[in-house]
C-alpha cells in the first residue's frame, strides 16, 4: 500500500526521489549510496523501502508500477525459495530479463531494488552496497 501511495506521488514529481516519513542515519547512508549508484552508467534507477519509509527513483516514470511490482515479486519469490530449501536469511536476488536486470537486497528492515541495463556487473553493485 505504501509503495502505491509513493508511486503516484513519484509520477507527479518525476525527477526527484520521493521520501516518505522520517529517515534514520543508516537509511540516510544507504540512500546516499543509492544516489551515487544511480549516477553510474547503465543504472536505470532504484526502489528503496522499509516499514517506515520508501523512495523510488527511476529514469522512466511510466515503468514505476511495473518495476515496483517486480521488485516485490523477486524478493517474495526469493523468500519462498529460501524457506522451502531452508537457506536462511536472504541477502540478495538478481533477476535478469532480456532487456534489463534487477538486483534486490534485503538489509535488516530495508529492501532495495536496483534496476540496470543487461551489461552491468551486479557483483560491483552488491559490493558497493554491502
Amino acid at each position, binding site marked *: 500500500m505504501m509503495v502505491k501511495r509513493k508511486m503516484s506521488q513519484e509520477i507527479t514529481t518525476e525527477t526527484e526521489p520521493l521520501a516518505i516519513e522520517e529517515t534514520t542515519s543508516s537509511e540516510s547512508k544507504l540512500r546516499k549510496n543509492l544516489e551515487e549508484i544511480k549516477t553510474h552508467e547503465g543504472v536505470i534507477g532504484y526502489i528503496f523501502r522499509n516499514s517506515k519509509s520508501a523512495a523510488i527513483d527511476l529514469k522512466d516514470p511510466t515503468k514505476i508500477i511495473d518495476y515496483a511490482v517486480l521488485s516485490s515479486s523477486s524478493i517474495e519469490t526469493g523468500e519462498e*525459495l529460501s524457506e522451502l530449501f531452508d537457506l536462511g536469511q*536472504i541477502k540478495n536476488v538478481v533477476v535478469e*530479463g532480456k532487456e534489463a536486470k534487477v538486483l534486490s537486497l534485503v538489509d535488516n528492515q530495508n529492501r532495495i531494488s536496483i534496476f540496470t541495463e543487461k551489461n552491468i556487473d551486479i557483483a560491483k553493485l552488491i559490493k558497493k552496497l554491502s
Partner: protein
Amino acid sequence: MANETYDLALESTLTEIQNICPDITHTFMFNEEGKIITNQKTPKKTISRIVASFEGMFEKAKAIGGFDYMALEASKGRVYVTKINDIHLVTVTSKKADIQFIDTVTRIIVPAVLRLLEKISPTPLKKLAEITEEKHEPEIIEETEEPAEEVSTEKQEEETVESEFQTEPQTHQLMVENLSGGFLGGLLVSSDTVNIDSTILTQWEELYENQKIEEVEIETFHGKTIRCKVKPIKDSKYDGKGVIQMPEKIQQALEIRKGELVRVKPIIY
C-alpha cells in the same frame, strides 16, 4: 519412444549434475506451463509451490523484457534459475559451492545437453515436459503407428550423432520387451541371453572388423549394468523396432521392466 528418451535423458542429466557437484542439493526443471521434470530428490509438493511462485514472477518480469535468469544468495545457500528454451532449470546449492563451476554447469553444460537432445530427436522439449508427469507409461509397439519413413529419419539422426562419438563403443538405446517362450512357457528361452535387431549386430560386426558379437553390456539409466549373451531377434514383429527382448530374470537383475529404456553396447574382445 522419443519422448521417453527425453524424459530419461533429462532425469539422468539432473542426477549426473548432482553427482559431479555434491554441493548441489536440489535440481529440477519445469516449463512455463508448470510441468515438472525431476530426479525425485526434491519432493513434488515443494516443486509445485515453487512453480506457482514463479508463475507470478514470469508475468512481472515482462517489465524487463521477460524472464531469463535468477540468482538468489542466502545465508546458508544459493538458488539459480536458468531459462533454457522453454524450460527452467532450478539449481539449489550449499553456501560453499563453487559459483564458477555451478555457472558453467547451469549455463553451458545443461543447455548443451538439451541442444544435443533436440538434435537427436526433433520432439519439442515442451512435449517432453508434458509426458514427464505421466511417469514412464510403457509404450506399446503394436499401437504405435509411426510411418516407416519417420522411424528411418530418427535412426539416421541417431547414427549421425553417434558417428561424432566413434571413440566409444557404439551404444544403442533400446526399449525393453519381454522375452518369453510362448506356448512352451520359457523352456526355449535361455535366461542369460537377450535378443536385439540383427541390423544392429551386423552394424557392430562391420564396425569392429567383422568380429562376431556374442555378448553385450546392458546399462540402465539408474546405473545398473549387466553382461549377457546376445542373439538376433527372430520375431519379425519386433525386428527393426528398436527393442531389446529380455528374459524376466535379467529384467529383475537390472530392476527394470518392459517399456523402459536401456543402453546396449557390444563386448569387444
